[in-house]
């Protein structure tokens, strides 16, 4: 029986010729990731283990990004714990203030995720690297601890849903709209335990940034991973960012998929997820009522990349953020921050009346840097709109693309750039 792309990567890392869906395997890891929230828990778990060293100091990435620069004493203690651990074991890829970025934007940029890799991260959006043809998935802190110590993890081989992508998206339709559309269609558990394998000639019309956004939110459909073929654009990205040797896997022609979904990019519209689930979607033209917003957040591991900032700047250029709206822009990494500065994007944001922050997860998880008060509303390019995600339990988060978030910041209500 043929294997899916995900199954092939898992089989290779388990030292097996083939695997089938449902099989439990133990496999070798190429990278183990943790952040400032999940790593301290993992480090304490490692203390309880008889193994007293890390399996490979080059294959661990520790990124301080959630409450960084430290928002309070407790988060400072967490970072200190991870910093000391990184020093003790001489962990090569430790990223602190000054070098850090939001982990899932940072790892591909630093060349630490590549095609064919098997990556686990103690962060659910680790699935982002599927955009590069890696099998990467989120785990918890105990898995991270075991991974750091042994270089191995257990997996249940997933079955897959094939998403066949065709067509070319319209001007303001981005990766965010593709994934929100898909989640709206299959629901937040539509791909539970499964791989989302994207194929089709429409993928060539999606930029790498679009693909990162799509793979990033595979978890919001319950998926174990999301994965893209390693085409020319992906190879170019890898050439530019990594010196690692990578391996291109392709699904067998007779691979079995539980379900096939077709997305014609040319028919998609800008899409917004209403509170309190990412699957609660409406296209921009379906939104008839005025949805006033108090805040707009443009950033996160989903949409804090340079192309996201470019489109937001294009819309905000020469315009002003509405008087009653706080617009917060957060470049995802130091490199993106610098590039945005060099391209003059930061100036556009500031002149429009937005604030620009150093890279951080900040408001995305209701950490700091833009917490919502009771009954406030935020249009956000982040990935989750659960109850209380960005602040008070009565506040609301609407998920959308950077284009929609920027346009809404200008009008003060959820709007398309075409309305400006």
């Amino acid at each position, binding site marked *: 029986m043929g294997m899916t792309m995900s199954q092939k990567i898992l089989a290779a890392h388990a030292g097996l010729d083939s695997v089938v869906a449902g099989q*439990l395997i133990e496999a070798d890891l190429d990278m183990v990731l943790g952040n400032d929230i999940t790593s301290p*828990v993992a480090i304490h778990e490692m203390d309880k*283990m008889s193994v007293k060293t890390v399996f490979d100091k080059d294959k661990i990435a520790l990124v301080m990004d959630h409450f960084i620069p430290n928002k309070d004493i407790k988060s400072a203690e967490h970072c200190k714990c991870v910093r000391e651990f990184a020093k003790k074991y001489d962990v090569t890829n430790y990223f602190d203030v000054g070098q850090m970025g939001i982990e899932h934007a940072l790892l591909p940029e630093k060349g630490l995720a590549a095609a064919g890799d098997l990556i686990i991260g103690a962060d659910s959006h680790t699935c982002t690297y599927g955009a590069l043809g890696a099998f990467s998935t989120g785990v*918890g802190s105990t898995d991270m601890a075991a991974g750091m110590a042994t270089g191995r993890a257990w997996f249940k081989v997933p079955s897959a849903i094939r998403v066949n992508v065709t067509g070319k998206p319209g001007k303001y339709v981005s990766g965010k709209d593709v994934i929100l559309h898909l989640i709206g269609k299959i629901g937040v558990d539509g791909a539970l335990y499964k791989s989302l394998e994207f194929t089709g000639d429409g993928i060539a019309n999606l930029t790498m940034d679009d693909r990162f956004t799509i793979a990033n939110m595979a978890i919001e459909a319950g998926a174990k991973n999301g994965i893209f073929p390693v085409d020319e654009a992906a190879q170019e990205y890898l050439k530019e960012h990594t010196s690692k040797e990578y391996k291109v896997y392709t699904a067998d022609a007779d691979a079995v998929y539980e379900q096939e979904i077709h997305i014609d990019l040319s028919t998609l519209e800008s899409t917004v997820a209403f509170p309190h689930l990412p699957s609660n979607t409406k296209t921009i033209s379906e939104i008839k009522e005025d949805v006033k917003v108090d805040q707009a957040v443009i950033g996160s591991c989903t949409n804090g990349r340079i192309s996201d900032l470019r489109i937001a700047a294009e819309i905000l250029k020469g315009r002003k953020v509405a008087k009653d709206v706080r617009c917060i822009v957060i470049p995802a990494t130091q490199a993106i921050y610098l590039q945005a500065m060099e391209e003059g994007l930061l100036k556009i944001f500031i002149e429009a009346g937005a604030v620009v922050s150093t890279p951080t997860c900040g408001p995305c998880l209701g950490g700091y840097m833009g917490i919502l008060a009771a009954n406030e509303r935020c249009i956000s390019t982040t990935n989750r709109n659960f109850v209380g995600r960005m602040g008070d339990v009565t506040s609301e988060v609407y998920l959308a693309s950077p284009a929609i978030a920027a346009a809404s910041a200008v009008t003060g209500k959820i709007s398309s750039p075409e309305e400006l």
Partner: protein
Amino acid sequence: MNAHGTVFKFGDNIDTDVIIPARYLNSSDPKELAGHCMEDIDKTFVKRVKTGDIIVGRKNFGCGSSREHAPIAIKAAGVNCVIAETFARIFFRNSINIGLPILECPQAAEEIADGDDVEVDFDAGIITDHTTGKTYKAQPFPPFMQKIISSGGLINYINSSGE
């Protein structure tokens, strides 16, 4: 191994943000986390829950972030077992890895009501609702996971396998 207690019933898609809100994640102390367990969906949960009680959810329980703080908070709050129709996969993994018993059983998850007196026999996979007198058979864990659970979680499992 058995669990016996009062049921706290929740609905579909109970996410890790309501199980333990991120604003408390600047701590990893189980007791502190337990003090805020379920706070954003049921403010009285922490006051009412007693050691041995059972949570019953519906579909996709534990979806969202990978924070192990979620099963840790539930376990530290005294909950002895979570029953649901389906679990989000990272929550499922984390619960096994930290030794919080969880059972997938669609019929039990649908029929058991809030406040019911429920007993779970983990070895047999039998759930008994003493309030209604009904019993349910839950899906047993695959052998590989049984080994992890019987070792008392992943860390002990690795320690005992001498890697």
